[in-house]
């Protein structure tokens, strides 16, 4: 099962990743081989089988909406690559961003 370079580019955009042209070439090959193996699942009939999203029987785990201990703001902002007072600082978010 081969995968086209344009699909690789599309998926890379979705994943916010960038690749050199050698990396991209290698990825096309590696993903094709892996996808071939994954296609094995098509041997199994699964009509009517419930998908498993969670292995232990559990629904709607709620807690009361009460105030508890939070992380101190300063402790969190200490990790910031760039900050401005109480804010994380980032480069401009321009209007014309590449499409999905």
């Amino acid at each position: 099962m081969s995968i086209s370079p344009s699909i690789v580019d599309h998926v890379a955009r979705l994943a916010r990743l960038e690749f050199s042209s050698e990396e991209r070439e290698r990825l096309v090959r590696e993903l094709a081989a892996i996808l071939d193996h994954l296609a094995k699942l098509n041997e199994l009939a699964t009509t009517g089988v419930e998908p498993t999203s969670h292995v232990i029987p559990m629904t709607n785990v709620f807690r009361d909406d009460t105030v508890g201990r939070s992380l101190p703001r300063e402790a969190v902002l200490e990790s910031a690559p760039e900050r401005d007072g109480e804010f994380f600082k980032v480069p401009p978010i321009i209007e014309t961003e590449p499409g999905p």
Partner: protein
Amino acid sequence: MDLVRACLDRIDAVDPRVHAFLSVDRSSALDAARRWDTRRADADALPPLAGLPIAIKDIICSQGLPTTCGSRILEGWRPPYDATVVTRLREAGAIVIGKTNLDEFAMGSSTENSAFGPTCNPWDLTRVPGGSSGGSAAAVSAGMAPLALGTDTGGSVRLPAAYTGIVGLKPTYGRVSRYGLVAFASSLDQIGPLARTVADTALLLQVIAGGDPRDSTSADLPVPDYSASLPGGVKGLRIGIPREAMGAGLQREVNDAVLAASRVLEQAGASLSEVSLPTIEYAVPTYYILAPSEASANLARYDGVKYGLRVRAPDIHAMYTRTRGQGFGGEVKRRIMLGTYALSAGFYEGFFLKAQQVRTLVRKDFTVAFGSVDLVLMPVAPTVAFKIGEKVRDPLQMYLTDIYTIPVNLAGLPGISVPCGSANGLPIGLQLIGKPFDEATVLRAAHTYEQSTEWHKRRPQLT
């Protein structure tokens, strides 16, 4: 103090060659040891792990200590909080001696995917210790720490335990809190204990197990006394060996060692029978859709905004793609790509949904098997530890290493690896798998086996 000093000396002596540790917290460990020594006079009041050094896989948050996840994207990051398991360990008196090496974001079976270099197997430094918890396993195997924590999403505690000749347990999904465990695949990840003996493993599990309001996927079920149930023996225990797991593709010595181990348990009073897990051959492709898909969502947070690496760029989109492109290693990027593809519009039904359905079939196989047996017995890995560099160029070959461990994660069951043999001086592991939340039976059988043999007494010859 003597114990902590001995571990630190051992780390100084052998870790330059083994490379199990990414960071060692010498001064805090010595301070903690000093404190526990003064409290020792009052022996009755000592908590269960008082003064015991423990090594923690570097994907578990330890406040103030670097937590890199084996990745450049978190190089230098210090978490502002402890994981629940670390809090419980500290309360039990354990001393965190350092953070151990791993495959980046727990993605790998050999610890070769670490951004900071591989860990070497203490039994043969030219071979891998297994992964992704290779550092933790090597630390215990080489005598650098008596206890360690690893994580297991597709076999990452059991495999390195098998390759390094120690005990490693993956608890039932939900048995141990994941709060503070950096997420790889949220429906599969579990933190697990690594130690030299089953008894030590049981002790460590006792401390970390139990529901946690900060992890909504943790089970609010009582934790039995694991240590108390160890000496029960295996009389009348029904053990099933899956026909699909033996023979084909197994290294001959592994096949022989695992079968010999089953006969030891039979001698001790267990009854053996054959069971069938027909979907086991679909477990690896199922996992390599589900885990990368969940990972693609979990790793979206590494974007250079709030923590970790940021690569400077003129606009935010370029900052994301450059930071992630440079910060993540090849295997991580490969899995994010796989997962994003499997979840994307047009491919979701054929890949992700299909894999979730096959996961149900894998679970059903085990449910049927447990209708007639109490434990399932099989190998941990198809071979003993392979050479560093041997499989790294072929991702698919690497993925197939997990063929016997992945089904257990898909089904959410408890599984243990105990040493049961050796081939050319390299350890072989025996895997025992139990019903959900039945770690007590798994540990009891593992302990009975261990005490009937000498494998757990062997040590790698590292000077």
